[in-house]
């Protein structure tokens, strides 16, 4: 707020963040209690940043003893029903993009003099294992000192917790000791509850020093090579992340955009990232570089070994890149495919190696084939399922859905590289994720009569430090579900793993109900199924898209998830035209566009739970300022 008085009129007397993680499935509940101490009504804002990967499942406001609950509805129906709210465009939306990892849920409500309000938001997500650890991110930024501030995280991992680390980007040395951490074999507890004085940014200040991310990193034990299966309430989840495997050599073709739009920082950071990536390429690997603008330039005619001399020569080539011309993505990608095809034909690649293409581009195709659908089709036909394609898109003005579809159709992923001082690190970080493949053509097999409604169970690659998760419904004898097998190709030939776990081990696993929420297997299955169906909508045929959409929608409604297909309708207790608002789930493509100046300010001043007064009366302002 720009009104200092409002900060004192509105008091946040409690802000509680409560997270429970059961086998990577996290449920976070943010509860905030506020009182309006003014003798006039005030508009109170509740701003929460939640991870992009999370689905909102519940929202409620309790005002003057009455509870107002958000209702999840099909997006189209919600919009039609609440046309009035939608007609206000962006302002009707409660969820907005907020930086790289988060999105922001904001709701405001008018509170009468001396009245209280309680907000509660719940969201769920499956934590993703990345480079050997899971990360739970909680963004906290209260606008003012909070009487009762508390973060509580309970983690329950039946496999056993290998390590658990908690830190806050805002935590100074004085506050470090306030982070309490308890870890037993399978349970972890983290709490952070600074007093009013410990929150103060200066002795007389009402502003809080709590401003940033509270991050919990942990990993689990991987004792069973075939992974860990958990069965509860008729649903099972299989976690597979084998360790101690020899890495597979890889053959990678880097396809680098050097068109005019890359001029300046983008090409500089691309070069910086490529130099770091080249320095990390394993000597067993093969690689090549293709740069493109209006035309396509091959650094070498074929893919070559990553010897020290070749790496040095590649660095020199990267250093020589400069931005010029138009953007010919089509020919560049077809050239990369052809280079890998030729190497396969000539048998110049290491046995049991895997091949991949990494595209880095910032722009729309403007030269050669410019029809995006045709480029996607050409690339898909050219690759023919042989190599995954990873697409890194540079900047906000990128057509993300174009590269996303291309990546998903070819067993890869797309990633937006945010234009910032650390863009080079983002590119390098992505490469690190795929730098160490351990397995290829992985297939997880379950007894045909024992399980149903399986999520994806075939995977092109498994990378060191990541994790494969498969979930499904148990239809037969529960014990049958444990009889699973994994078939894959490793560095030393075909790999065959069978679950060795003894049945009696399972009985002990879930004996402590206070640490888990019982339906987590089912909700995790639903979450994963919806995520995968949504991905298939990007790349499938029209008929597949329709079927996948219908199924994803059905599950979203059944499990009360706010997904890109549903909206949460929030009705405010005000008899005004704008009293109904919609909380939508944004897709990466929808969240394009850099933060505007005004938005950036809101982000910078918006707390985890932010309350401020917005004046409806705009008084005349007499001023003097610069020209």
């Amino acid at each position, binding site marked *: 707020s720009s009104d200092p008085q409002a900060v004192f009129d509105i008091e946040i007397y409690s802000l509680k963040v409560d997270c429970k993680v059961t086998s990577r499935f996290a449920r976070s509940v943010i509860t905030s209690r506020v009182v309006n101490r003014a003798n006039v009504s005030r508009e109170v804002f509740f701003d929460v940043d939640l991870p992009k990967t999370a689905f909102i499942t519940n929202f409620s406001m309790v005002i003057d003893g009455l509870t107002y609950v958000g209702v999840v509805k099909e997006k189209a129906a919600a919009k039609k029903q609440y046309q009035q709210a939608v007609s206000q465009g962006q302002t009707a939306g409660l969820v907005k993009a907020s930086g790289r990892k988060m999105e922001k849920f904001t709701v405001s409500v008018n509170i009468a003099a001396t009245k209280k309000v309680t907000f509660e938001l719940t969201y769920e997500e499956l934590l993703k294992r990345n480079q050997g650890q899971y990360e739970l991110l909680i963004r906290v930024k209260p606008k003012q000192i909070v009487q009762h501030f508390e973060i509580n995280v309970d983690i329950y991992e039946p496999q056993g917790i290998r390590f658990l680390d908690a830190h806050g980007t805002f935590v100074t040395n004085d506050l470090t000791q306030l982070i309490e951490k308890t870890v037993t074999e399978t349970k972890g507890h983290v709490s952070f509850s600074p007093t009013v004085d410990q929150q103060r940014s200066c002795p007389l200040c009402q502003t809080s020093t709590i401003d940033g991310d509270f991050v919990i990193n942990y990993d689990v034990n991987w004792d069973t090579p075939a992974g860990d299966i958990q069965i509860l309430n008729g649903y099972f989840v299989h976690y597979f992340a084998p360790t101690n495997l020899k890495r597979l050599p890889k053959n990678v073709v880097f396809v680098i955009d050097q068109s005019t739009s890359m001029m300046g920082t983008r090409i500089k950071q691309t070069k910086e990232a490529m130099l770091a990536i080249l320095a990390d390429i394993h000597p067993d690997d093969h690689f090549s570089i293709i740069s493109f603008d209006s035309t396509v330039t091959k650094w070498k005619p074929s893919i070559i070994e990553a010897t020290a001399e070749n790496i040095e020569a590649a660095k020199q080539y990267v250093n020589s890149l400069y931005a010029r011309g138009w953007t010919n993505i089509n020919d560049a990608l077809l050239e990369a495919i052809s280079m890998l095809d030729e190497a396969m034909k000539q048998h110049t690649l290491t046995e049991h190696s895997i091949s991949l293409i990494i595209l880095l581009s910032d722009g729309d195709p403007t030269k050669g084939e410019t029809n995006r659908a045709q480029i996607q089709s050409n690339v898909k036909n050219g690759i023919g399922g042989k190599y995954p394609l990873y697409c890194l898109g540079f900047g906000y003005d990128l057509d993300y859905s174009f590269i996303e579809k291309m990546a998903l159709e070819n067993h890869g992923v797309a990633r937006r590289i945010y234009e910032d001082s650390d863009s080079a690190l983002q590119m390098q970080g992505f490469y690190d994720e795929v730098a160490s493949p351990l397995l290829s053509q992985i297939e997880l097999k379950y007894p045909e009569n024992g399980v149903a409604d399986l999520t994806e169970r075939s995977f092109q690659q498994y990378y060191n430090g990541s994790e494969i998760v498969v979930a499904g419904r148990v239809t037969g004898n529960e014990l049958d579900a444990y009889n699973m097998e994994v078939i894959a190709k490793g560095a030393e030939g075909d790999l065959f793993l069978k679950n060795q776990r003894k049945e009696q081990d399972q009985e002990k696993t879930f004996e402590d109900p206070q640490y888990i929420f019982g339906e987590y297997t089912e909700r995790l299955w639903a979450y994963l199924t919806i995520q995968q169906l949504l991905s298939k909508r990007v790349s499938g045929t029209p008929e597949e898209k329709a079927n996948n959409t219908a199924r994803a929608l059905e599950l979203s409604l059944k499990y009360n998830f706010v997904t890109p297909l549903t909206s949460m309708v929030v009705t405010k207790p005000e008899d005004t035209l704008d009293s109904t608002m919609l909380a939508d789930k944004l897709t990466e493509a929808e969240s394009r566009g850099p933060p505007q100046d005004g938005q950036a300010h809101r982000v910078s001043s918006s707390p985890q739970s932010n309350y401020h007064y917005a004046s409806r009366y705009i008084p005349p*302002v007499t*001023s003097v300022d*610069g020209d």
Partner: protein
Amino acid sequence: PHFIIPVPKQNDTICFNVDERPGVIFNLVRDPLTGITVNGQTIGDKKIDPNKKLNTYFGRFGIVNEKLGLKLEVTTRSIEITSGKEKMAFTWSDTVSMKQRSFALQINKERNLVVMMGDSVQFVIVLHRVWKDHPFHQDYLGFYTIDSHRLSSKTHGLLGQFYHDLSFEVGEIHQGTDPEKPDAMMMIKGQELTVTRGWQRDYREDIKHGVQVPCWFVHHNGTGLIDGVHSDYIVSGIF
């Protein structure tokens, strides 16, 4: 600096510039009843572009509330508050909310400072950051008064004299030297002035681009609009 004077009764705005040498201190607000005084000191550009006129801005403000024993000195580098015997200093990189008995203050990091005196007027000082290696320009400040009607009718000063009733008439609109900015005649305070339709910028919401405020521009340092001439408001110290 450019002055923007809204006239809400007429749903219109008057504006004028004051050009004076750097270092001069102007009395902007003086209310003998509430004991509130605001003075501002001008700064110039780092060096003068020989092809352009000398630009001045406000680079330092002093706000005094005699009744509360409060002094506030704001520059482009620091914010110093003296309350009785207590003294506090902040920089623009701080985010601060503070409330004492009859005084509230909020520093919004690198953006603005809002100060409220009891239930009275609210002042907003906006920080304009300029690229530090800019050959000519340097950081400067803007000053905005909200709810100015809460100060007494005795309030005066270069800005303060406009906090209460003001009325004018505009007629004979005709083409001026700039085809996009018509000139007109303005009747105000019993005088007839030639004014030009233009606009100035309010930077409270959008600090980079500002919001354009259409206004009638009074030439020659506001002569005819202000009581006396602008040099009458020059004072010797910031407090």
